[in-house]
């Protein structure tokens, strides 16, 4: 498949602060998730791809053409910025039609496109309210609408799900997947792993301005399986529970949490451990209050990948 967006040795720094370092990527059509903690360089990458910033080193091209100072390309690109910023004195309708006017569509078409975009994000009923009166979720949705209203081939979404309630997130994820089905190229950034997982399995993991891993998310997770899983069990009698696991050879390490109220276990065989845990809890009559995985989050994944 041909790359729609290509970066070569892309680097950007702000004074002495490194924003992005030597990033070479090829992004094909479909959804690509850009994962990384806050400050990892995701927004810098997106600003470079949308021509808002000039790379210090390297190049970024869309459809084989350099992005910087090539504003004609932006007809093909829709960008949804991370920041919650708007022209607050206008209505959602005026915001959308005004921005569509910048593309030079005829008035009738501006109206049709704005109606369609507001319909997609389910804001038709509130289109005549001023943006300053919109809830955070509505603001996110109108921001998304302006990125897709001109029907771009490439949609770049910087943290589009932040600030949305669970229902809003589900709706927007469905919408993004619909755009994928329509053959669009979509880059979506997030620092929340499950959000990206719900949209795509193709990810780019970025940390401290560098690409840590890229490819299929399951392959990356398999890679992480080589590290032991940490499981914390808060229960009525942590020591009694620990005693039941002492002979278990799959347990690498056990420790007790604060005040001895929880047992923290490290194992390579997480699924096997959970089935044994069930038996141990029932046989020992132990009351379990909470089971959690302190390292089952994106930060932990990054920690593994950077070797902390």
């Amino acid at each position, binding site marked *: 498949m041909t790359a729609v967006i290509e970066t070569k040795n892309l680097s950007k720094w*702000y004074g002495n602060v490194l924003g992005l370092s030597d990033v070479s990527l090829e992004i094909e059509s479909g959804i690509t998730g850009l994962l990384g903690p806050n400050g990892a360089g995701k927004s810098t990458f997106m*600003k470079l791809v*949308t*021509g*808002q*910033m*000039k790379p210090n080193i390297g190049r970024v091209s869309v459809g084989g053409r350099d992005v910087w*100072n090539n*504003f*004609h*390309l*932006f*007809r093909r*690109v829709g*960008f949804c*910025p991370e*920041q919650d*910023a*708007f*022209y607050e*004195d*206008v209505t959602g309708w*005026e915001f959308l039609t*005004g*921005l569509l*006017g*910048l*593309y*030079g*569509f*005829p008035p009738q*078409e501006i109206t049709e496109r704005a109606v369609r975009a507001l319909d997609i994000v389910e804001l038709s009923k509130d289109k005549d309210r001023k943006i300053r009166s919109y809830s955070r979720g509505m603001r996110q949705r109108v921001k998304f609408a*302006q990125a897709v209203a001109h029907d771009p081939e490439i949609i770049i979404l910087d943290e589009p799900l932040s600030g949305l309630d669970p229902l809003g997130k589900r709706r927007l994820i469905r919408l993004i997947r619909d755009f994928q089905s329509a053959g669009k190229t979509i880059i979506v950034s997030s620092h929340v792993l499950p959000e990206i997982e719900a949209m795509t399995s193709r990810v780019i993991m970025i940390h401290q301005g560098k690409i840590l891993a890229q490819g299929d998310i399951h392959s990356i997770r398999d890679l992480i399986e080589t590290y032991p899983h940490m499981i914390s069990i808060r229960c009525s009698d942590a020591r009694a529970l620990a005693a039941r696991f002492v002979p278990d050879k799959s347990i690498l390490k056990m420790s007790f949490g604060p005040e001895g109220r929880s047992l923290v276990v490290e194992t390579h065989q997480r699924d096997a451990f959970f089935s044994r845990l069930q038996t141990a809890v029932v046989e020992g009559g132990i009351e379990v209050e909470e089971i959690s995985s302190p390292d089952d989050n994106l930060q932990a994944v990054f920690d593994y990948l950077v070797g902390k």
Partner: protein
Amino acid sequence: MKPKASAGGPSFWTSFRRVFAFFFFLGGRTGRSRVFFLLGLIPVAIAVMVRIVLAGRTGDVVAVFNEILMVFFVTFDIVILSLFYGTSIVAEETEGRTLPYLITRPLSKTAIFLGKYAAYVTLMFIMVSTSLFLSFFIMNGHRFRDPALYLTFLRYAGALGLGILAYTAFFAFLGTFLKRAILVGLMFGFGWENIIQYFPGSTQKFSLVHYMKSLMPRRPSGGPLSMLLFRLEPTEPAVAVLTLVVIAAAFLALACWLFRTKEYLFEE
């Protein structure tokens, strides 16, 4: 239907017109525009009061217009308008973090900057000329049939229009690279400009207001309120017009170049 565009995308003028239309509409919707429009009604209110108080004393009425209301327009109204609108051309996009909505559209940065500048200059001119028109004709209501009156009005309007062009270009230039452009602009507009214009000799030519004052329809004045004509050693009108146009063009060119090359980072 696809947007009307040539193979290489829209021309500069097409982009300019689109940006102008967008910001002319947006600019008219802001609370700031409403406040400034109300501010422009101050001379109108004064004109009404003066007409009532000085009923029948036509000479005094005209003097009040020349020596008080024009001072308001020349040394306050257009400076404050140009300062707030000019510096905001870039600053409101960066401080409001709305710049990505503009620079990720198929528009050149020059067209964005100049389109917004033209939209704001037009808005300001509408505000100032409405206020000038009302106050001028309220004050000169007794001379409606005198054709010279209309030429005088046009000359005032032209001088103020050129002043808006030049001041806004200068303040827009400040706004492209200074974080606190409004403070520097205040010092320039109400410090430097207010002081230097009353210096004798050629020093006063280092102020923009000097060239505006040189374009005013002059009349003999020596009264204690003749602030505008006090110590004015006028420049030839043609030179004054040219100077204001060149100043506007030079600062616009600099501002466009800065806006095209500078990367604006948002403070979190």
